[in-house]
């Protein structure tokens, strides 16, 4: 599904991300782990089509509209939690009724169903992250790219996130996380790819 060969991203004369070979199969769960600044975010952005200045090969048989990327510090649009979660579903032409039921389902999946009517500006950092994840997972896109989805989350929140990731059966999910934190909480079903600096 995704093939990366000799990928290199340079910024200001410095290599900020280098991947020699990485293949991701359809439906796979992959954790990209590495120290801060070794290029995890850049790799996910390249795969998500948000970063176009790179050398090497990054080939995915998924259209850009089906590669959903969640920022390391996610952005929620003005409005309510429900409006945010239905955003991607509306963009996919889903009926209003289906949008609402899918949004509620994914908010419940992430343990934030009770926040549906709240204004996003009033949410805590952890709540905002879970809402952003619900918004992304609800699309059930072919490729989900989650940049450090566990940051700001307590143990309960992490459990909800892993359970929700397991529930998007049809999607390929790539998560990034710094070492060593992630290794302790990674589900066994997750393959890891260690990104080296430079």
């Amino acid at each position, binding site marked *: 599904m995704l093939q990366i060969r000799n990928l290199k991203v340079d910024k200001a004369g410095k290599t900020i991300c280098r991947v020699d070979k990485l293949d991701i199969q359809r439906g796979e769960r992959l954790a990209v782990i590495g120290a801060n600044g070794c290029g995890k975010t850049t790799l996910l952005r390249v795969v998500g089509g948000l970063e176009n200045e790179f050398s090497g090969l990054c080939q995915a048989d998924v259209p850009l509209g*089906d590669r959903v990327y969640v920022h390391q510090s996610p952005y929620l649009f003005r409005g309510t939690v429900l409006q945010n979660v239905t955003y991607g579903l509306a963009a996919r032409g889903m009926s209003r009724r289906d949008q609402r039921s899918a949004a509620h389902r994914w908010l419940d999946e992430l343990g934030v169903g009770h926040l549906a009517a709240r204004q996003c500006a009033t949410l805590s950092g952890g709540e905002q992250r879970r809402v952003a994840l619900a918004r992304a997972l609800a699309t059930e896109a072919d490729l989900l790219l989650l940049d450090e989805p566990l940051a700001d989350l307590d143990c309960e929140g992490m459990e909800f996130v892993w359970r929700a990731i397991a529930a998007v059966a049809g999607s390929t999910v790539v998560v990034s996380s710094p070492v060593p934190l992630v290794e302790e909480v990674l589900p066994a079903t997750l393959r890891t790819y260690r990104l080296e600096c430079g």
Partner: protein
Amino acid sequence: MQFFWDGLIGAAELLAEPDPLVLGAAWRSLWISTLAVCLAATIGIPVGSLLAQKKFVGRWAVVVLFRAGMSLPTVLIGLLCYGVFSRQGPLGGFDLLYTPWAIVIGEFCLALPIIVTWTHSAVSGLDPRVAETARTLGAGWLRRWRTSLSEARLAITLALLTAFARCIAELGIAMMVGGNIKHQTRTLTTATALETARGEFDRGVAMSLILLVLAVIVTVPIAWLGRQQQET
């Protein structure tokens, strides 16, 4: 000072018993300015947001041109419109000179640079994650555009109110292309100027007071929205 107080008392009497001339001028000022701002918004908001989002050669020249347009004196706009609408002008055949429509077009020219410039700065100042998040969630260009406008809506509303305040308080355009014709093109500002020149100070003050009330009605939401924007 006595002169001013006499004017105020006279104005209060006039406002207590509404004069059809004053009310007509107030109504004309309101609809002309509202229409001009609506037309300018219809064109200015898309143009401002496109200038912020699309890269093309000469984009900054266009932005600078609109910014410069914000400080154009109203008499200059009035003069240019006069040239365009006069018998010998390119649009002379439409007989627009000394009609309210000429004032609408003039005020449209006054409001457009304000709306374009403010929309441009509001949309280009948005967090880059807005566009990225919308795009990555599968939104097409129209939905992405609507999202960017929605995220910048406070600043855009502020732009509309500012443009309206500028239009309703202007004198140069209304005087030059409107001609201050009784019951036809007389607005609050031209009527105030006329009454004061004729020595009808109380009528001038009465109309200034109505203008002042309208300005306050517009300024209060501007201040409130400005505060909202600082808080979010």
